[in-house]
């Protein structure tokens, strides 16, 4: 009982810390991505997680890759070009950055 309780607490603790870390990071990542995409905003439509980067904005493929390079250094991850090619939305880009950060040794 006590062990179970401790376990629960421990698990909660771990989960909480992880969520916290992920949460802060995710907000950071999204904010940073939006900052880089702002100059390419088309019209009044706000940039959100669902924004399709290459379609909803006025950014070209080369500028996307350059932006990714900036994000790589900001978050200390490297995103292979084949992975960039599969990313469409702001959310997907944020997920990729978070996953890469999580899988770092």
């Amino acid at each position, binding site marked *: 009982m006590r062990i179970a309780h401790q376990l629960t607490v421990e698990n909660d603790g771990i989960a909480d810390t992880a969520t916290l870390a992920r949460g802060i990071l995710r907000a950071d990542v999204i904010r940073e991505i939006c900052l880089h995409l702002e100059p390419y905003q088309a019209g009044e439509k706000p940039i959100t997680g669902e924004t399709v980067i290459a379609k909803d904005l006025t950014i*070209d493929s*080369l500028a996307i*890759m350059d932006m990714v*390079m900036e994000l790589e250094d900001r978050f*200390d991850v*490297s995103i292979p*070009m084949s992975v960039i090619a599969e990313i469409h939305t702001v959310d997907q880009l944020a997920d990729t950055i978070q996953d890469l950060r999580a899988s770092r040794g």
Partner: protein
Amino acid sequence: MGLFDRHAGLLEAYRDVRTTGLDPFQIRMERVLSPTEAIINGKPTLLVGTNNYFGLTFDPSCMEAAIEAIRAEGTGTTGSRIANGSYTEHVALEQEIAQFYGKKHCMVFTTGYQANLGVISTLADQGDFLLIDADSHASIYDACKMTRAEVVRFKHNDPSSLEARLRRLGDKPGNRVVVLEGIYSMLGDSAPLKEFIDVCKKYGAYVLVDEAHSLGALGDNGRGLCEAVGVLDDCHFIVGTFSKTLGAIGGYCVSDDPDFDILRVTVRSYMFTASLPPSIVASVRQALRVVKAKPELRKQLWENVSTLYDGLKEQGFTLGPEHGPVVGVHLPDRMTAIGFWRAMLEAGIYVNVAVPPATPNGVSLLRCSLCAVHTSEQLEHMVEVMTGIGRQMGVLPPPKLRAVSGR
């Protein structure tokens, strides 16, 4: 969806270009008169956009060698090296280029594009890491599409950006192959090669340097940037082209790696295309002799670079970051660049226009490439013409009028 619908954006941009006047991407040289002159639209035109750095396309000894080779061995090989065999001269050319670099091995390709495409995509394969400069040539990017290696770009000419990416790989297994260029083809800037080599050594990465635009131009013997900064031995692979300084077409790769020759049966762009025709092989061999025998051509080239670069700079043009055989002139946008290009052609001067997506950072450029046999008069005239057009188009401020004072 129509086959060309996906190009709608490009078609629209291109329509703007085509409906407003001469199309810079379909210019016709009615007759080429010399390395620096051609008839375009019925008019003698100064050529300052041909990558003909030493002006060897009309070198009498190179022309003779090509003509003799056609008489002796015919116009073409009609097949690949692995199917139809190598001619003695293919092998001789490879030996001469290997010797030129002091490397053990050389492979010759039918174009420089194919050399990069085949070598880079073969050297780094599944489980490896290919690290390329953000401003790499299209042939390098295309090689990246063909490889199964993980490809990561680093910031242009930024060794610390490369280092960060090598560091992040940690102790992951797999070869690291770093691709650099001696001189970058759009802005004419050189790589900080020594610093890059230091980073590559620290992380045990292989280095491939493309000397397409630096062959002849850099180094005491014209071997390129690797020679100029003294790192020939640290460059595992050097790639180059015959289509610029050597005035023909073709590509090569040299290396000291003992197993290099395995590439002859693994690199598809070498295996499955016809080999260089005898005339090209002969003119290239002779051009290489000329490069070795006439270092003064290099000196003339750089004097011409100074005349054009310094002349344009003084007039207020925004240029690439340093002197180079390519001088990139920044213009505010695509249509200004095209208008400027047309005005220059009207005035009898041909350069290249380079617009996104072919340019780094979305810049629009007039891309000028110099030739050792341009005269200083030709280039001073060009500066004058460009200054006039620049003022006419509002790219340059109006001339400062000298204050006339009666007092």
